[in-house]
């Protein structure tokens, strides 16, 4: 029993040693790899994706600042000019 078991183990080791495809790459192999390389991303798309989180964060912060600076009583800017003037000088006498 033990002898047979050892023989099978030896066969398994042989099988593991012989387990090899023994293949060589053909001359076009490198070209096939290069053809599969990802193309460079479109710079505009790349920039947009990179800047999106920063842009959103900035917008959120500005929104928060505006909201906190809004005068009590519900008086809000009514035109773009007034809003711009108020943003430059939120505490001014002429605030909306």
């Amino acid at each position: 029993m033990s002898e047979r078991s050892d023989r099978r183990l030896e066969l398994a080791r042989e099988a593991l040693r012989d387990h090899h495809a023994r293949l060589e790459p053909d001359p076009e192999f490198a070209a096939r790899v290069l053809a599969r390389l990802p193309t460079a991303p479109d710079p505009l798309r790349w920039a947009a994706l990179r800047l999106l989180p920063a842009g959103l964060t900035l917008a959120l912060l500005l929104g928060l600042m505006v909201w906190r600076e809004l005068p009590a009583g519900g008086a809000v800017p009514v035109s773009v000019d007034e809003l711009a003037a108020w943003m430059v000088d939120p505490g001014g006498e002429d605030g909306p």
Partner: protein
Amino acid sequence: MSISTVAAARSLDLPAAPDFELRLVEASRSGDRDAFGDLVRLHQRRVFRLAGRFFRAHEEVEEAAQETFLTAWSKLDTYRAEAPFEHWLTRVCLNTCYQRLRKTRSTEELPEALAARPEVDSDARLEVERLLATLPAKDRFLLLMLHGEEWSVAEIAEKLGWSKANVKVRAHRARARLRKLLEESMP
């Protein structure tokens, strides 16, 4: 080193000069595909040979080798030039083969090598090969490195970046599972 020297080194499977290879790596990092093509040509035989240890079908070896180089391209930034590029690429190749082995079912391939070796007890060998193919991928992976490549535990640990203790434990388990499988299947 000129391109013709690279070509000669390629055909003889000789290592390229480290500084030249490093320049190719640097150029590849900055997106130079031609430089990466030269890196592929320098190492393709070695990668093919290693992938051929784990897979027998031509398509599988080709796919594993291609995936190795695609991964290398996307992770070139992680290569530190402290060790030869070849070592880093070997690790990428081994990890690629391991992941692919884990995805494939445990009972593929077999016996074409037997026909070429009439001296072996074909029936018994065939049976043993069938059993080997049923082992879990992680066991076959380790056993092929230990008995196929004849790497030591320390060599495997170094090539894979695993701890020696980890390799030792896995190797012990793989051998125990193989022995059990062979004993249980004995007629």
